[in-house]
């Protein structure tokens, strides 16, 4: 998935990186891509892409264009583009997405609704 650079950096003004050494609580509304490597609790909304790395813990409802999940997510996910659950992904929550890829080993507990492209209001 080529949403982000191969080194994991976002490198564009407006992008957010939640590193492994921080915890974010509250209603996070991003104006660019969001990479989560640490902890996030609350809500997460962006018109762009979200990448949750392996080891990251997200307890939030997430709305974004594309989501690549390799960590843990507890909450509902609404995606207007593609949702990819990588082999280390653990998702407990309902999913609304236009496109879904589940890799072998990924866990999904929740209702899944396929849509024709939901618009994200951020």
């Amino acid at each position, binding site marked *: 998935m080529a949403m982000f650079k191969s080194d994991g950096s976002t490198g564009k*003004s407006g992008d*957010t990186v939640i590193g492994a050494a921080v915890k974010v609580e509250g209603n996070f509304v991003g104006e660019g891509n969001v990479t989560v490597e640490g902890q996030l609790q609350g809500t997460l909304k962006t018109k762009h892409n979200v990448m949750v790395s392996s080891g990251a813990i997200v307890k939030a409802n997430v709305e974004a264009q594309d989501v690549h999940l390799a960590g843990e997510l507890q909450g509902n996910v609404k995606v207007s583009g593609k949702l990819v659950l990588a082999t280390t992904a653990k998702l407990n929550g309902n999913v609304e997405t236009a496109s879904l890829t589940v890799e072998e080993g990924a866990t999904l507990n929740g209702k899944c609704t396929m849509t024709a492209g939901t618009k994200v209001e951020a």
Partner: protein
Amino acid sequence: MYTYIVEALANTKKYESELARVESRLIELEISGRIEKLTILKSLKEIINDAVRNHSETVVLIGSDKLVNDAMSTLAEADVTIGIIPIGESNAIAGALGIPNGTGACDVLSARITATLDLGKVNNRYFLSKLYVPAGSNVTLECDSKFQVSALTPSTIDIANFSEESNPRDGHLDVVVRPEVRKHFFGRSSYSRASIFPFRKLTIRSGSDSLPIMSDGETIIKTPATVEVAPKKLKVIVGKHRKFV
């Protein structure tokens, strides 16, 4: 009309010949003007206010990043275009604006490509590039009254308007939280990736300990403090090779 302000450091024997070359080049380009040299008796604020009163349209700072930072709070409130002629060693701001050292900067001034930039504001003090908070524990950042960031390990904080991560024309600042490097035996160090959050208004708290907030190596205020963006606040002359769009 141009007013040139020469930093005390640039007005020393070491830079005498470079300053003379700059003055000659300004005459050749027909953009010479009033030259004010900073001394103990002449404050920067006074000189800038005099320049504004005398209807100077362009105030040019000749010197290092320190002069640019020191002048920012007064210039931010003045209706003038700012130019920079970097002289000396610490000139990262001019470099990012695409302005070469010495006489090359005179050509940039003459070409007069201008850009309107955001500034950062901490209490009543403006800054162009960035602020730095040394590592401390219990540091929390409240961003745009929407979410709170807690550093789980001692981390340094950079608040940047203008850096590799930040564009000074995007209407927001960025806070970069860098976990302190842990050193192990045999000289090995472990690194954890920095976190980056764009914001418009940020409150920094550090529990019961007060941490210094520094600009250009000097403490300008202590935590708790509120930092916000002042969008499109500064009109500045830039070079073609500037590091932002």
